């Protein structure tokens, strides 16, 4: 059982502390200003209930129920727009997949080598240009609604989202030029390829990095706007 025993007493008089899992869950969902009073209130009533009924099971069940109900109350309030952002990203990707699936060209837009070449490089360069703290703040601020961030933290988060979004576009541009140069070199070495109808597919593949870069720039741009709006409305 996920609860911590407090020291003292015989086995029959052992006092059980509140369960850790719902405590952690609540800590995650509660706003910073209410974390201390709500967790304190729950712990106080949990101990009272345990002492009054003599049943740890009932006190634990009550605590779990309160934690779940309260987490639901604060879920949309705290994480609402973060979840909306996440859902919009999922929806965006789902729509892209659907359009690819229904087109006659299939999933040619999905290119794991280009993705692997672009994503880690741009992301690490974004962290390098700002800081790891800025990265953490940027990602946290994108998916949460907590208004407990200071002006400096919001500025750091915004900086990371802005710089990393631009890095995606720049790295995508570099990969695109690499692909284009490689393509031109291969055409010059093997002129027969110019007559091949597959040359259009080669052009298309060369454009994929730019497509990925724009998608990521779009996602980071909307996250940055969300952070700015959060600061303005705080």
């Amino acid at each position: 059982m996920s609860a911590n025993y407090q020291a003292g007493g015989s086995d029959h008089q052992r006092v059980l502390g509140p369960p850790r899992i719902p405590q952690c869950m609540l800590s995650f969902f509660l706003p910073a200003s209410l974390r201390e009073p709500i967790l304190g209130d729950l712990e106080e009533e949990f101990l009272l209930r345990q002492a009054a009924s003599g049943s740890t099971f009932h006190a634990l069940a009550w605590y779990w129920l309160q934690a779940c109900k309260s987490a639901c109350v604060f879920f949309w309030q705290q994480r609402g727009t973060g979840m909306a952002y996440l859902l919009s990203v999922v929806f965006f990707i789902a729509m892209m997949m659907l359009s690819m699936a229904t087109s006659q060209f299939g999933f040619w837009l999905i290119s794991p080598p280009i993705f692997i070449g672009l994503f880690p490089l741009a992301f690490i360069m974004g962290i390098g240009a700002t800081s790891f703290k800025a990265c953490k703040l940027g990602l946290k601020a994108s998916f949460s609604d907590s208004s407990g961030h200071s002006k400096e933290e919001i500025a750091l988060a915004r900086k990371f989202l802005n710089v990393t979004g631009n890095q995606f576009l720049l790295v995508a541009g570099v990969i695109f030029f690499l692909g284009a140069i490689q393509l031109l070199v291969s055409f010059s070495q093997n002129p027969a390829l110019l007559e091949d109808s597959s040359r259009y597919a080669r052009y298309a593949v060369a454009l994929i990095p730019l497509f990925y870069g724009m998608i990521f720039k779009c996602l980071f741009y909307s996250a940055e706007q969300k952070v700015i709006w959060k600061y303005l409305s705080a």
Partner: protein
Amino acid sequence: MTSPNSSREGSLGELEHIVLLTLVRLGDDAYGMSVRSTIHELIGRDISIGAIYTTLERLQDKGYVRSSMGEATAKRGGRAKKYFKVTAKGTKALRAVRSNLEVLWQGIQIFGSLDGEFGRI
């Protein structure tokens, strides 16, 4: 006809009304858990602590209550209490709701048993 209490400024939701009245009743000992257990004892409604605090925060935003942090005790795991007190604006809102309800209830009575039909006197 417009009554003196027709302004939306003095409007209170049902839970806000219940919580505000409980705060008045509890006086200086009004904090999340005491509000929750008093409501449960008096009217039998088991409201989650989260709902109580969101209501209290909303009332605070409206200026009907003010809060202050209390002492941290061992039985609360070293965490402080957050006390709430009704402001003059909150008292005014409660009075407005009460007088509005009294006007609405005038001339209405319940026929027969408690779950019987309503009707005009």
